[in-house]
């Protein structure tokens, strides 16, 4: 394909995904995987060019991660799971009347995180490609391919970092058996519907609770009250928003996180490094402003690094990001004659083309997101809160999951998804990191073979 046409299409898709995911990112309670993976998967299963879908995906994660902290700053309501650690800092800022300042800092830092991650993770992922081949050869005492050891190590690390460590460790084998058992019932090694069921699990669980007679604790008498703080006009000059130390810390931690996220949890890294920075500063306000900004930089960097390094270098999803939102790129799809979009991507395009397109779309997405959020964060937040009902959003993702489950395994696929969703939600609600479940899904055949 002509590179000009390719860039033109990528531009169109990136702009579209940025506009869409700024809105979705701001809606409270939206889980990243549940809102990103089904649409990415639908595009890939429809046979769209993997490079163009990747362009769409990069736009999505850049916009989503920058936007989900906006309602946090303006109303102390997190736009998503990743923004939850930022709520306490936003409350400190509000106490001192610094909400608008923290908003600007967050948006600017997320651009820094994006740029640093592209500069570090993108070249690194191509440089590490030989490692990918090595990881595919069988080795070690269990005669597993190398990557399986990495995934199993990742599962254990994530399990130990979960809120419920012992439960997380206990979940590994039963969940692997559930996955393999369902595959045996279907008579084929499905991936998509089980994967989507895990992502939609927590929402499904809550919605099913509504039918149960024991739902009193969820009942409310009133609408949710949301207080938006006052903001003025904000300058576009990014240098006005962060001080030198914040720029330095954001860059350093974004760089480190972009690499670590190939194997480690983005949420974990955001909490860990953000808390470190906060505790190093005695002044409450300064510490909160700094931690808020750095967390925003880390969020974008972990999403980008956690996608690109496994996607390009390793070829298997080795971390929670690649086994979560980016998992559709690793699934074997009929649309690509049983190959994964990842393999097609690397076969179809040269390294310079891939690097050019990814760098271009990511930076374009960062620029667009920055300008839109800096200029319109307040009216956008107001629009989202006043116009987009949570009912419509949850229903849309449920419908996509149901139809893809049906396509993969018929009516049994739908029941299978409900089963997996409920069990994943039970683990997740009791403190097991959902990344553990995603990675067990990938390693399930190897784990069950051990038993």
């Amino acid at each position, binding site marked *: 394909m002509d590179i000009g046409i390719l860039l033109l299409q990528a531009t169109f898709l990136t702009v579209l995904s940025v506009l869409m995911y700024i809105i979705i990112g701001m809606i*409270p*309670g939206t889980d990243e995987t549940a809102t990103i993976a089904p*649409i990415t998967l*639908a*595009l890939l*299963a*429809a*046979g769209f060019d993997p490079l163009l879908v990747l362009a769409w995906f990069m736009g999505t994660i850049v916009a989503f991660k920058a936007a989900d902290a906006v309602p946090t700053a303006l109303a102390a*309501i*997190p736009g998503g799971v990743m923004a939850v650690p930022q709520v306490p800092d936003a409350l400190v800022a509000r106490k001192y009347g610094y909400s608008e300042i923290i908003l600007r800092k967050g948006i600017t830092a997320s651009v820094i995180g994006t740029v640093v991650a592209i500069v570090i993770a993108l070249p690194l992922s191509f440089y590490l490609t030989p490692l990918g081949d090595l990881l595919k050869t069988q080795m070690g005492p269990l005669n597993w391919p190398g990557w399986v050891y990495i995934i199993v190590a990742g599962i254990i690390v994530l399990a130990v970092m979960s809120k419920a460590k012992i439960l997380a460790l206990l979940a590994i084998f039963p969940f692997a058996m559930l996955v393999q058992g369902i595959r045996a019932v279907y008579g084929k090694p499905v991936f998509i519907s089980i994967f989507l069921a895990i992502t939609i699990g*927590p*929402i499904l669980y*809550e*919605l099913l609770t*509504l039918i149960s007679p024991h*739902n009193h604790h*969820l*009942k*409310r*008498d*009133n*609408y*949710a*009250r*949301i*207080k*938006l*703080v*006052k903001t003025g006009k904000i300058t576009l000059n990014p240098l006005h928003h962060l001080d030198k130390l914040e720029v330095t810390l954001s860059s350093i931690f974004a760089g480190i996180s972009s690499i670590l996220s190939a194997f480690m949890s983005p949420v974990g890294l955001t909490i860990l490094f953000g808390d470190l920075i906060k505790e190093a500063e005695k002044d409450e306000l300064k510490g909160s402003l700094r931690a808020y900004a750095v967390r925003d930089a880390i969020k974008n960097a972990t999403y980008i690094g956690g996608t690109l390094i496994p996607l390009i270098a390793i070829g298997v999803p080795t971390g929670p990001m690649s086994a979560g939102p980016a998992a559709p790129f690793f699934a074997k799809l*009929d*649309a690509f004659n049983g190959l994964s979009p990842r393999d097609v991507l690397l076969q179809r395009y040269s390294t310079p083309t891939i690097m050019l397109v990814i760098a271009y779309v990511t930076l374009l997405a960062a620029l667009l997101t920055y300008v839109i959020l800096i200029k319109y964060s307040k009216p956008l937040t*107001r629009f989202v*809160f*006043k*116009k*987009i*009902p*949570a*009912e*419509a*959003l*949850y*229903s*849309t993702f*449920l*419908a*996509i999951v*149901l*139809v*893809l489950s*049906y*396509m993969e395994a018929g009516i049994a696929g739908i029941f299978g998804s409900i089963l997996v969703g409920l069990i994943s939600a039970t683990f997740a609600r009791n403190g097991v990191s959902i990344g553990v479940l995603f990675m067990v899904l990938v390693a399930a055949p190897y784990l069950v073979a051990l038993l």
Partner: protein
Amino acid sequence: MPNDQLYEIFGEVIASKDFLKAFLITTIATFLMYFAAPTIVKALGKEDLLKALRVTLSALGAFVGFIISSAIIEPKRIVEEE
């Protein structure tokens, strides 16, 4: 205040009836497009692309369902500005 029962899910307040409405609208729109796909693909003369277009059309159905239910359902949030 609505006579409909309200619930809190993921920090969002939703009404059970409105959720049921949105769920039916989007699911029906999605599956309608899924099952209509072979006919649409035939009309377009692109039968070889059935599998691909089937997913695209289903996603389109879900999106249309989202727009319709957003238009008819009121978000359960009261926004106050300082």
